[in-house]
């Protein structure tokens, strides 16, 4: 039928795995806004949710690295990490093979997306699902943008991927929701874990909220690496979600939580 929801959220593994080490008020505030995002998502009555992730070598490696990928399976398992480390139990999420095939066919009109009949979810998808689909009810279509192994896809291609997903969502009879997940500035899994460039984050979120395509695409990877760290490359997922929605964004939550290694962010976009 159409795209019925587009939003973004953080996916850092510390959000669940190191929850007890965060200041309780900050953790509780974040979790409450995740609850609110879940309510918004389910109120849109989606038949399936596309999660645009920036995965971390769970499925894709430098032997054969796709810039863009979409899942094409009846089910997916995760987390690939130790469930105790991530504090998220293993689950089998439902997919939809036919829907994936139709979405991929349309996306391929403009983006040469890889498709995957096997896909094991890492924290990049599991942390969002843990909050947004706690009872494992939704049909999930995983999407990925390579934000880990350079050379990385240009930002304007991430925008084109978002537009292609929108066109594909509008072309199928199902009601499609979309969630982009990633960090803004962060230096995860390095000794600098916990470093967060709040000013850079807020400037990016300002561009994102205004739906200012040119401003969002103006970053070079050199600038992003210097100001936002290697984690900052994940702005591609936020950009794709914005491109899919086409409207302005609302940031419902932004709070740097160093033990979670990221400025924890939740936002939704107007579908235009």
């Amino acid at each position, binding site marked *: 039928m159409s795209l019925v929801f587009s939003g973004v959220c953080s996916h850092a593994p510390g959000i669940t795995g190191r929850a007890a080490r965060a200041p309780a008020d900050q953790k509780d505030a974040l979790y409450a806004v995740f609850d609110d995002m879940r309510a918004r998502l389910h109120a849109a009555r989606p038949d399936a949710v596309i999660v645009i992730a920036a995965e971390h070598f769970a499925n894709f*490696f*430098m*032997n054969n690295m796709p810039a863009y990928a979409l899942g094409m399976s009846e089910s997916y398992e995760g987390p690939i990490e130790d469930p105790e480390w991530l504090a998220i139990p293993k689950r089998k999420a439902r997919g939809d093979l036919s829907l994936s095939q139709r979405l991929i066919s349309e996306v391929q009109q403009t983006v040469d997306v890889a498709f995957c009949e096997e896909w094991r979810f890492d924290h990049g998808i599991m942390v969002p699902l843990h909050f947004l689909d706690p009872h494992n009810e939704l049909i999930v279509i995983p999407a990925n943008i390579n934000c880990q192994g350079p050379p990385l896809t240009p930002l304007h291609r991430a925008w084109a991927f978002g537009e292609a997903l929108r066109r594909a969502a509008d072309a199928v009879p199902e009601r499609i929701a979309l969630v982009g997940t990633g960090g803004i500035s962060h230096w995860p899994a390095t000794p600098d*874990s916990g470093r967060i460039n709040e000013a850079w984050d807020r400037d990016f979120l300002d561009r994102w909220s205004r739906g200012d395509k040119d401003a969002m695409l103006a970053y070079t990877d050199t600038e992003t690496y210097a100001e936002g760290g290697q984690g900052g490359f994940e702005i591609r997922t936020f950009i794709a979600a914005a491109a899919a929605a086409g409207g302005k964004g609302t940031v419902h939550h932004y709070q740097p939580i160093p033990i979670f290694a990221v400025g924890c962010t939740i936002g939704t976009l107007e579908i235009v």
Partner: protein
Amino acid sequence: MSLYQLSKLLYELNRDDTLKTRFRADPRDIVSGYTLSEEEREAILRPDIGLLYVLGVNGQILMHFAALCGIEWSDYLQRMRDGVKQHGPVRAGIYAMTTSVDEKIAGA
């Protein structure tokens, strides 16, 4: 320098429970299946998280290997910092340290 092979070993180890079991039983046997320098091989076998970090292993792969070795989060971060102190700056990849060796970042 065979960072690709080193990273591939850890990538495969992280996603394959059977390989993990075999690695625990006989790490030298698993490591012999990859074309590694002596330094890389020893870094895995000790394991020397700090040296693996300095060699350029992507942190997203390394943090799971550290967890597999039973290394707690703050200890993992400190071992990387100590690795830079001992072995010098990160030699490859995009996970270089941006702070000084004696700095403490909130959250660590």
